[in-house]
């Protein structure tokens, strides 16, 4: 995570780095190993199932993030726009398509193999559907659709669950069998799910450690690292179990030592503001963006972005006893598959339970799934918590939409407003 030589790397960071490197190495050596690759999305990511077939899991969103953080996405997006993709649509898609046209080089510098199967888990985002149609347009490979109905009325109905399970049985599993040549073994799946649940327990503990005043973690900028393994190709692996065990013990130590969150410039000093953040971060200026917070003593104590690949802190666990049903429920329960009233409830609870000073929304141009309606959510959360909300706008991986001066101006005003309000409450 940190490239800063003065900072001692925590062992969880080293572990994660190795896991990721290892995964990219496996992906880019399929020519030698003959392993097959499935591409799929973070929300509704069926890693446990994919593992049952010995397939490798490639997540284009993660590639886009990697390219964003390495400041390569800008050129890729422009490439895609040049080839006729609209400037209005999600930049993850364009970054992915641009990466392809630039030789499809993985972040480890080696060429990425074309996928053998596109597993279109249509969960919580419309763009996913067209994204994989576009990839199919380019690769011409097999595509299997898993439609995850939106929980428009706020709950998972039997019809939804049955529909997802049925698609798993009749379409997804047969496709995975076909591509891999491996027969489906439900016991293997149960085994994977058990490991998922174990890792999930520790992840939830870590995220909730931010309830402490003087939080030992930043649940957004740090949080995106903590969710890495569980949201991607590692859920259900022993590596993930180990990672979360180590991570938890590190945070336990920080807590005991009364330390604040780690930042790229060392431990954070004073905790001046506690915020809940809604919306994904900006990746192209991730460090600069983060710095605008820790320089001012702002800690993010809870965020919804860390729930896109699964909402675990509200009680859901993968369940080895109901393997396919629990996979279905996992998909149905992902953050962006929840209706707006539910998202508002979650945010209100976060502000209250984590004793936050307010809600900050980072509205992402790319992502209608997150962004459409955020302003109404903001109003509702303000009304129900009485805490002030802030609003900034950036984009995921399009550097043209990160205006540092603009964001900084708003954040400063927001922090000063919290400060002013607080000094008034103290005076009263």
């Amino acid at each position, binding site marked *: 995570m940190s490239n800063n030589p003065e900072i001692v790397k925590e062992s969880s960071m080293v572990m994660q780095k190795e896991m990721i490197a290892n995964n990219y190495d496996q992906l880019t050596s399929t020519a030698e190993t003959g392993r097959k690759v499935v591409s799929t999305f973070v929300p509704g990511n069926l890693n446990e199932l994919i593992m049952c077939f010995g397939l490798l899991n490639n997540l284009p969103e993660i590639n886009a993030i990697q390219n964003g953080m390495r400041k390569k996405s800008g050129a890729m997006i422009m490439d895609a726009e040049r080839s006729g993709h609209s400037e209005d649509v999600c930049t993850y898609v364009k970054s992915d398509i641009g990466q392809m046209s630039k030789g499809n080089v993985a972040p480890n510098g080696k060429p990425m193999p074309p996928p053998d199967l596109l597993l279109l888990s249509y969960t919580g985002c419309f763009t996913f559907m067209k994204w994989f149609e576009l990839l199919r347009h380019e690769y011409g490979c097999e595509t299997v659709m898993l439609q995850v109905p939106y929980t428009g009325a706020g709950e998972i109905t039997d019809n939804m669950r049955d529909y997802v399970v049925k698609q798993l049985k009749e379409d997804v599993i047969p496709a995975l069998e076909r591509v891999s040549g491996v027969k489906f073994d439900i016991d293997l799946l149960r085994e994977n799910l058990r490991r998922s649940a174990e890792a999930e327990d520790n992840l939830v503990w870590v995220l909730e450690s931010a309830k402490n005043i003087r939080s030992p973690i930043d649940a957004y900028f740090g949080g995106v690292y903590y969710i890495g393994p569980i949201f991607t190709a590692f859920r259900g692996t022993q590596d993930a179990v180990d990672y979360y065990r180590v991570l938890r013990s590190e945070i336990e130590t920080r807590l005991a030592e009364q330390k604040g969150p780690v930042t790229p410039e060392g431990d954070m000093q004073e905790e001046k503001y506690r915020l809940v953040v809604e919306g994904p971060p900006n990746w192209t200026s991730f460090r600069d963006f983060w710095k605008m917070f820790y320089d001012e003593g702002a800690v993010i104590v809870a965020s919804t972005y860390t729930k896109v690949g699964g909402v675990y802190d509200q009680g859901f666990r993968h369940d080895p006893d109901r393997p396919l049903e629990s996979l279905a429920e996992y998909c149905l329960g992902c953050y962006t598959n929840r209706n707006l009233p539910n998202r508002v409830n979650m945010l209100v609870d976060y502000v209250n339970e984590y004793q936050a000073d307010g809600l900050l929304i980072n509205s992402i141009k790319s992502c209608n799934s997150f962004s459409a309606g955020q302003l109404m959510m903001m109003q509702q959360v*303000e009304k129900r918590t009485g805490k002030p909300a802030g609003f900034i706008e950036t984009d995921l991986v399009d550097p043209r939409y990160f205006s540092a001066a603009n964001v900084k101006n708003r954040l400063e005003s927001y922090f000063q407003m919290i400060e002013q*309000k607080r000094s008034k409450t103290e005076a009263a």
Partner: protein
Amino acid sequence: MKCYIGIDLGSTTTKAVIMDEHGEALGHGITNSRSNYDTASRVAKMEAVISTRFTLFRHRLERVPELKGDISGLLADLERSFRLELFLEQLEDLHQTCSKNVDTVPGIDSSEAVHEALEEIFRNLAKTLEELFAPGAERKSDFFRDLAGSVYMQVSEDVARQTGLSYDPLLNIYDKSIIEVENRPPSANLDEKFLAALDRVTREKRIDEKLLRKPIEDALKEEIEECYTVGTGYGRVRLPFPKENIRSEILCHGLGAHLMYPGTRTVLDIGGQDTKGIQVDENGIVANFQMNDRCAAGCGRYLGYIADEMNMGLHELGPMAMKSTRTVRINSTCTVFAGAELRDRLSLGEKREDIIAGLHRAIILRSMSILSRSGGVSDEFTFTGGVAKNEAAVKELRKLVEENYGDITINIDPDSIYTGALGAAEFAKRSGIEKPLH
């Protein structure tokens, strides 16, 4: 005298307010935000000092029994004459700069003819400017650039036609020179100009010079001591100030509006390239705010583009829109395309004033959305920023506020453009009294 200064470095204009230790605003100054922010804040501050001097004159003159009752007129005359002195000096500077620049502008066949034309233009300019500063005359703007510029354009077009010179190089010379001139704050001694203005007024008005000279000289002797300065506004990061001397413009506008109207609960500020909706509590503390997003559509600059396009002064837009009888619906408030939209409409045969009225409504509609986003409009409602000077905008705003929020007191101060600077000055006073700057 201990003074506290607030500077609002806006995207279009830079404003300064000088406050004394009792919280009375003594003077304010404004200037175009120009290429150099340092110069802009220096000029704004100088203007505020000038305005403070006039306040001090007033204080002194009020104590002259013989003058009873006639101070305001007298001060206005003094100020007018003083401005003219300043302008004439700048005009002279501009003249010399233009002459100097003749040879650096391409496309000139005979520099001699151009020099001659310039002489003619500046003769005319001096005359027109003096007329503009005659008692009772109306001015389009108080900025040298605007006044000199529009006269220059007119005169040079005539001169170009008469002499057969081409118009573009003349304009280019102006464009080039005005920047240089603007970036040179008036050099000569201000006190001298005050006294020269005094002479002119006493001559014009046949007032006994002796009555005035002493109080004015006394006022000029009073020291204006800069104790603490706070900067705000768009360009605040460029101010040569330490961080603790900088406040966000949201807080400053909130506080400034509260100082002007203590009952304020909602503030709308429309500046050059941002529009802010601010909710404040009974102490002027900001409870919530929203700004326009990254798109600068529908902000004050929009009106600037329109005025340029129509070859009018900003001052004239409002009155023209007030003449409208039916409003044309304008949907795009993109500043850049404002001109195109305008031409589009004109070519469809719509009337100018109706289009302009539509444009005003479009701006206000957009700020209504920002207000709605920030939590609506509560009583009392204060409208600040440059656009608050525009009567047509104000009219639309009143209408829409009433339609959407009912009966609400709407405050608009003639000096509302200084709201941010006033807030900043108050912050300066608070900080300065706590811990004076060394």
